[in-house]
C-alpha cells in the first residue's frame, strides 16, 4: 500500500443492494519492472497477476494451496500466489515464469532443462515447477536425485509421473553450473515476440 489510506471505490453495475468493493493501490516490482496498480483488496496475487498485469503464465490449479501451479517467487522465495492477497505483495518483488527468461529471450537453465528432458506435457503445472526449481538450483546447483525430488515435493503434476521433472531439476543444475563456468551449450530462445500466441490455434484470438 502506498502510505495514504486505501481508496474505496464503487464499481459500476446496475445492482444497488450491496456496497462496492474496497480497492487499494499497490506497488510491486514484477519481473524487475516496478508496477503500480489498483486492485480489489480481496483479489489473490495470482488473480492480480493474471488479470491486472496480464501475466497469464501463472496458472491457477486449486486455489487452496496444494497443487503449486501458481507458485511465484516473492523476494526470491517460492510462495503460493493463490494463498496471498495481492495487497500483501505491496512493496515486494515478484517473479513469475515470464520473468525467468533472460532479457534477450534466452531460456533460463530451468526452462531449457524442461525442454531438454521432456519435463512437461500439458504445461499447466509447469510454471509452478519452473519458479520453484529456479529458486532451488540458485541455492543448490549440484543436488542429489533425492534433493531434486525433495525440491519439487510440493508441486502436483498429473501428466508426467514426475520422472522427467526430476531429470529436469538435475539438468537445470547442470546447466546452471555450465553457464556459471561460461561453457554452456547454446541455449534455445523462447518464441519470438511476434510469434503466434499459440500454434495449437489457427487464427488470431
Amino acid at each position, binding site marked *: *500500500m502506498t502510505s495514504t489510506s*486505501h481508496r474505496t471505490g464503487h464499481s459500476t453495475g446496475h445492482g444497488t443492494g450491496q456496497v462496492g*468493493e*474496497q480497492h*487499494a493501490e499497490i506497488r510491486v516490482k514484477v519481473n524487475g519492472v516496478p508496477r503500480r496498480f489498483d486492485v480489489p*483488496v*480481496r483479489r*489473490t496475487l495470482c*488473480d492480480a497477476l493474471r488479470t491486472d498485469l496480464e501475466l497469464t503464465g501463472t496458472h491457477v490449479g486449486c*486455489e*487452496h*494451496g496444494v497443487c*503449486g501451479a501458481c*507458485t511465484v517467487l*516473492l523476494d526470491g*522465495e*517460492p*510462495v*503460493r500466489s*493463490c*494463498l*496471498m*492477497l495481492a*495487497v*500483501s505483495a*505491496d512493496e515486494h518483488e515478484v517473479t513469475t515464469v515470464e520473468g525467468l527468461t533472460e532479457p534477450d529471450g534466452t531460456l533460463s537453465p530451468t526452462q531449457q532443462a524442461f525442454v531438454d528432458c521432456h519435463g512437461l506435457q500439458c504445461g499447466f503445472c509447469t510454471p509452478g515447477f519452473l519458479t*520453484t526449481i529456479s529458486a532451488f538450483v540458485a541455492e543448490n546447483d549440484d543436488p542429489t536425485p533425492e534433493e531434486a525430488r*525433495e*525440491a519439487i*515435493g*510440493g*508441486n502436483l503434476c498429473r501428466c508426467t509421473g514426475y520422472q522427467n521433472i526430476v531429470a529436469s531439476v538435475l539438468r537445470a543444475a547442470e546447466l546452471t553450473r555450465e553457464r556459471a563456468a561460461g561453457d554452456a551449450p547454446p541455449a534455445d530462445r523462447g518464441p519470438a515476440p511476434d510469434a503466434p500466441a499459440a500454434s495449437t490455434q489457427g487464427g488470431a484470438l
Partner: protein
Amino acid sequence: MKTSKFTYHAPRTVAEALDTLAEHSVDAKVLAGGQSLVPVMAMRLAAPAHLVDINKLTPELGDLEVTGDGVRIGALVRHARLERDADAAVRVPLVGQALRHVAHPTIRNRGTTVGSLAHADPSAEMPVVLALLGGSVVARSVRGERTIDAADFFVGPMESVLGYDELAVSAFFPAVPGRAGTAFDEITRRHGDYAMCGLAVVAQLDEADRFTSLRLAFVSVSDVPEVVDLTDDVAGTPYTDVDHAALGDRVRELVDPAGDLHASADFRRHLAAVLTQRLTREAAERAAGVAPGAAATAGTAPTTRGGRA
C-alpha cells in the same frame, strides 16, 4: 473459490493493529502467513468482515531471538527462517526436527510459526511442540499484554484462548535442560500431508544414562495437544534397559484418537504405539549422545510431514 468481501486493514504499527482488533473484535481476523486462513476463506468456510494484515509489522514482530533459555520468535517469523536458523537448531533441536514435517518448503516460506500456534490445528506440528516443551505465547491487546502457557493456550480443535481483540505477538520455545534428547516423526498418507499420527518426544537422562523424565505429545490424536508423561514408567531405568515395545503398549491404552477418511481410530492408536516405540529410543539415544543428530539439527528418519498455517 473466491473469498467473500472484507474490509482490509494493513496497520503500520502493532498499536494500530491492536486498535483495529479492538474496534472490530469478533468480526476481525488476523492475516499473517495466510497458508491456513486464505484457503478456508477461498472456500468461504470463513468470511471475516475485517482482515487485519500484520505483514507490514516486521520491524516489531520479525525478531528471532535465541537465548540460553530457548528460542523466542515474533509473529512474523516464517517457518522457513526458524527452520534454517542454526542457533535455534542447537538450542531447541525439536523445533527444527518438527518444522521439517510442516507441509512443503513453499508453504514454510510464507507460513508463520506463531500463526500455526494461533490456528490451533490438532493436526499441526508446532502446537504439539510448544505443548511438549512447555512453551508460551505472548498475547497483546489494547487491554495489555499477557503470557499464556502452552498448557492453557489450546482449548479445542482450531481454538485457542486468544481473545478476539488479542494479537499473538510472539512465542517462546524453551530449551530442555540437562542431558536431553528429542525426536519427532510422523506417518502421513502423502509426503507433506497432515499426519495420520505424529509424535514429539523429550527424554532426559541422568549422568548414569537413567531416565529422569520421558514426555510425549502426539499430532492428530487429540483435540488439543496433550502431553503424555511416561516418566513414572521409566524413571531410574537405564535407557538401554527400557522395553520400548511396552511403552508403545502403554500409549495404546492412553490415547483415544478419532478416525477420519485417512486413518481409522484404531489405526491411529496403533501408529501412536509404533511411533512411541521408535522415537522414545531415538530421543534417549540422542540424550545419551550415541545417536546421530544428538547435537542439533539432524532429524529422524526420512522427512514426511504435515501441517501448515
